[in-house]
Each structure stands twice: as structure tokens, then as C-alpha cells.
């Protein structure tokens, strides 16, 4: 069974540019998470989806970050415009429900110059 797929794996952009990350969860998983992982830190939740509905986006900086999960499957996380402080690893995870184990993708490492 394929795990959580994320792309791109690495992205280098200049500040003020837009960037988007894509996540394909494990088939059948209704719950999808986006986490931010700064260097030397644990993952921090940005947003959680139940199917196509964003049910917990309290930690998402909405002035520059946006996310969508069309048809309740794949998801995209966008930053516009990117700032130097956004350099981090962006992890996607999925689970059968929020009560089940979360499975993480390999992440996208973003570097903002």
C-alpha cells in the first residue's frame, strides 16, 4: 500500500514569491493534516481536514497561507507571498479518522532566500 505522497520534496524560492505544496493521502483516509516542522522542533499542526472540510485551521496564518482539499482526497497548501521565516519542512499526514494513527509523508523542505 502506498503511503502519503508529497511533492515537491524540495523547493527553493525567493522571498515574496508564491509556493504550493501537494499531498496525496493514503487511499480511504478521510482525515488529512498539514504540519509545519521547523529545524530542531516537533511538528506543529497548521490545518486539519475531515473529508473536504477544514475543521481546525486555528494555527494557519491566514494572511499568507491557504489550503484546499478538493473532492476530499488530494490537498494543496499555498503560501503567498513567502517570507524568510517560512523556511521549514511542511509535512502532510492522513488517518482514517482523527481517532486513528496518523501516517506522515516525507515532507517538503522549503527554503526561502
Amino acid at each position, binding site marked *: 500500500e502506498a503511503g*502519503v505522497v508529497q511533492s515537491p520534496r524540495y523547493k527553493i524560492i525567493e522571498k515574496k514569491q508564491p509556493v504550493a505544496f501537494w499531498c496525496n493521502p493514503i487511499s480511504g483516509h478521510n482525515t488529512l493534516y498539514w504540519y509545519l516542522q521547523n529545524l*530542531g*522542533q*516537533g*511538528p*506543529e*499542526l497548521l490545518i*486539519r481536514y*475531515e473529508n473536504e472540510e477544514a*475543521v*481546525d485551521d486555528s494555527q494557519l496564518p491566514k494572511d499568507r497561507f491557504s489550503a484546499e482539499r478538493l473532492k476530499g482526497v488530494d490537498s494543496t497548501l499555498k503560501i503567498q507571498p513567502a517570507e524568510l521565516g517560512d523556511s521549514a519542512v511542511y*509535512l502532510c*499526514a492522513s488517518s482514517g479518522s*482523527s*481517532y486513528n*494513527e*496518523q*501516517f*506522515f*509523508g*516525507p*515532507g517538503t523542505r522549503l527554503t526561502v532566500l
Partner: protein
Amino acid sequence: QQQVKQSPQSLIVQKGGIPIINCAYENTAFDYFPWYQQFPGKGPALLIAIRPDVSEKKEGRFTISFNKSAKQFSLHIMDSQPGDSATYFCAASMELGSARQLTFGSGTQLTVLP
């Protein structure tokens, strides 16, 4: 109150040693405590987890010790191997509304020397 404090930040042991990683929490609403293992370039993967109604759980060479009154829990790795070199995160989970929320510690980078 939703923080999980983890120590040490890094740990180096010889092969066969028993590294111990400690975590502490404040919020008594946490009721599930998983540990994750993360290799470079990979996402975290669930290693072992414990509920507060037991004081110890063992799976293979990995053991969680849990002290509910002290609100502390720790991971012990018996007979550590170079392949165990990774970053380990403790986490705590609680029910929030109609879902569960997971809070991670800051991680411990473990190096097992051959």
C-alpha cells in the same frame, strides 16, 4: 498548558547502551502518549504508544515508562543499535471537540555509535 517538554535535545550512546528520553506534560486532559521516530528526509512514524492506565509498555527493544502522578513519561531503548540513530519525538493526545489533537515535543536526536 498544551506543551509537551522533551529532554535531552541530543543524545549519544555506544552500541548496546540504553538511551533514555524524557517528556513531561501539564494538561491532565492528555490521555494518549505516542512516541514517533523520524529518520532524515522522512516523516515521523509511530513507534510505540501508551495510555495513562498502565505504568509501562514494552514492544521489542522499546519501553515506555509512565508516571501519571508526576505527569512524566520516558522512552527506553534496550540494546541500542546504530540503526536506531534517528530523531525521537514524544507526543500527547487529547480529545478536543469531536476530534483528537496531537501535540509533539521538540525532539531528541539520538546517535548510536558502532
